[in-house]
């Protein structure tokens, strides 16, 4: 079991954003977390990555308790994420965006950087190699020196995923990667996600607003509504669940 979320509750004042949320993921799984707007999906991500400390409950990664741990430390333990609204380093180049993710492994200290001495230059070269290899795998290697903010939308999404991969995670959290894409683009993106999961041996937790998009690639789906899990199971089971249909379509009991 790589990720274990136990009875997490997150409360903002009087508002309960997520209540009694539990989920455990095995290595190599791809789980979809779906639900209507405001269901609390991103809150779950923020609790897992340490942005929020949960009001109650616990999160552990590979048996290590990471509840409320600082986000950069969580990342170093092997959880990487993307954001619902793209958060690239817009005024930095494509390759610099990737290199930032490699910074925490840097061994050279500030004095090495002041003098750009041999020790530093050696590491810098290795970092650039790694970054270029990663960019090649997501087909962005021709744009290494472009400004990240000037890339087309789809490429920005791919770059954000690539930046997360550069931290060498075991678990990847993707927050609505298909937001703002048309159906054809979404399908292509899902294929891309499936591919990187295989290539990098990743465990992936994927938030998606539209159920259709994740149906094809998720082994399991968890459905959140108003902060509570209303259904979980295989895509087929979930899509037949009347509670899910009701949450999504707002069907009343009379209908």
């Amino acid at each position, binding site marked *: 079991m790589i990720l274990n979320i136990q009875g997490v509750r997150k409360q903002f004042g009087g508002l309960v954003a997520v209540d009694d949320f539990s989920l455990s993921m095995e290595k190599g799984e791809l789980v979809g977390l779906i639900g209507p707007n405001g269901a609390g999906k991103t809150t779950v991500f923020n609790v897992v*990555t340490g*942005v929020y400390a949960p009001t109650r409950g616990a999160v552990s990664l590979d048996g290590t308790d990471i509840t409320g741990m*600082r*986000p*950069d430390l969580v*990342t*170093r333990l092997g959880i*990487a*994420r993307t*954001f619902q609204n793209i*958060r*690239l*380093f*817009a*005024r*930095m180049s494509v390759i*610099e965006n990737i*290199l*930032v*993710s*490699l*910074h*925490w492994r*840097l061994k*050279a200290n*500030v004095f090495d*950087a*002041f*003098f*750009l001495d041999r020790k*530093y230059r050696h*590491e*810098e070269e290795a*970092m650039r190699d790694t970054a270029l290899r990663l960019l090649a795998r997501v087909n962005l290697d021709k744009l290494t020196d472009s400004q990240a903010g000037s890339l087309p939308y789809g490429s920005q999404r791919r770059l954000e995923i690539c*930046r*997360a991969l*550069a*931290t060498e995670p075991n678990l990847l959290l993707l927050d609505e990667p298909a937001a703002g894409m048309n159906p054809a683009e979404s399908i292509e993106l899902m294929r891309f996600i499936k591919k990187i999961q295989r290539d990098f041996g990743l465990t992936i937790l994927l938030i998606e607003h539209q159920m259709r998009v994740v149906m094809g690639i998720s082994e399991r789906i968890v459905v959140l509504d108003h902060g509570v899990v209303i259904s979980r199971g295989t895509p087929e089971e979930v899509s037949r669940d009347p509670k899910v249909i009701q949450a999504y379509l707002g069907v009343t009991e009379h209908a």
Partner: protein
Amino acid sequence: MELSRTLGRRALVLLGIILVVAWANGDLKLIGIPGWGSYTVRIINLCAINAVLAMSMNLVNGFTGQFSLGHAGFMALGAYVTALLTISPATKEMLFFMVPLWKPLQNLTLPFAPVLVLSGLVTGLFSLVVGVPALRLRGDYLGIATLGFAEIIRLVLQNVRRLTNGALGLKGVPPVVNLWWTLGAAALTYFALRNLLASSYGRAFKSIRENETAAQAMGIDLFKHKLLSFFISSFLAGVGGGLLASLLTTIDPVMFKFPLTFQVLLIVVLGGMGSLSGSVLAAAIVTYLMEFLRIVEEPHYLSFMTIRGIPGLRMVIFSLALVMVVIFYPRGLMGDNEITLAGTGALLKKLLPKRRVAA
């Protein structure tokens, strides 16, 4: 072959620079060549010191994206450390006639170079004391907190009379600095910061400026890097303050009020937040204009009428200039671009053929 040629060219350029500085500094008087006028040299000294200060402020405000307004306070610390460690014991005895100076410092004087480094270190260490609580704040709140800390430093300097001589200030700081010191400090600062910013640490700083949440999610320790940037910046502010103390030979707490921070901020914004060479360029422009614009503050006697100068009008002009820059040219002279040799060459190539056509 190719390498030796570039090396040779570089050595030639370096030699040229050394000769020009030596001439301007008056070092060639020995062989009968007079130096540049002392007024001009003084302005160049100020330009270089302002460049150091602006680059150091740019590191925190422009590259790391943290709005800090504590520069005057840090400069004051550096200036006082330099003054206290270089003024001769006899002068100290004369200065501290109201309250005697703290004993251990009375007879302590050190050579200028280690004093300058010490000024930077003391200021840097103090910046950690300020930074640990203040850097937990963001945006305007950080600006207000650092401004407050700078004011606290100034008030402490004004009131710990056994150490600082209070409001009387310190006079008789040995005028050690010359063009070698100031230009050398500016060049060292420029190259050290350029390297740092080109390195992985520089990228970490910029990522914090671009998006804190994302930077942290990519494993960047926000607090550590903000503090690092703050420390380096304050170290340089302390060195700049020390140079200034030796250039002016007289310091007092009133010098280090907020307008001093504002003046450095003006240079940084005018040069471009996130451009080192922009800071250097703007430091030269602003320092020169500060002197040039003295004409608006001086009275002018024409044959038919007298124009009275208005003291303080220079600052009005600079404030207006800053407002204009922020409204019409928010990225400053350079934005976040740098002046490079290759870039200058390309620009010249673009400009030169046009002239030929015109001729």
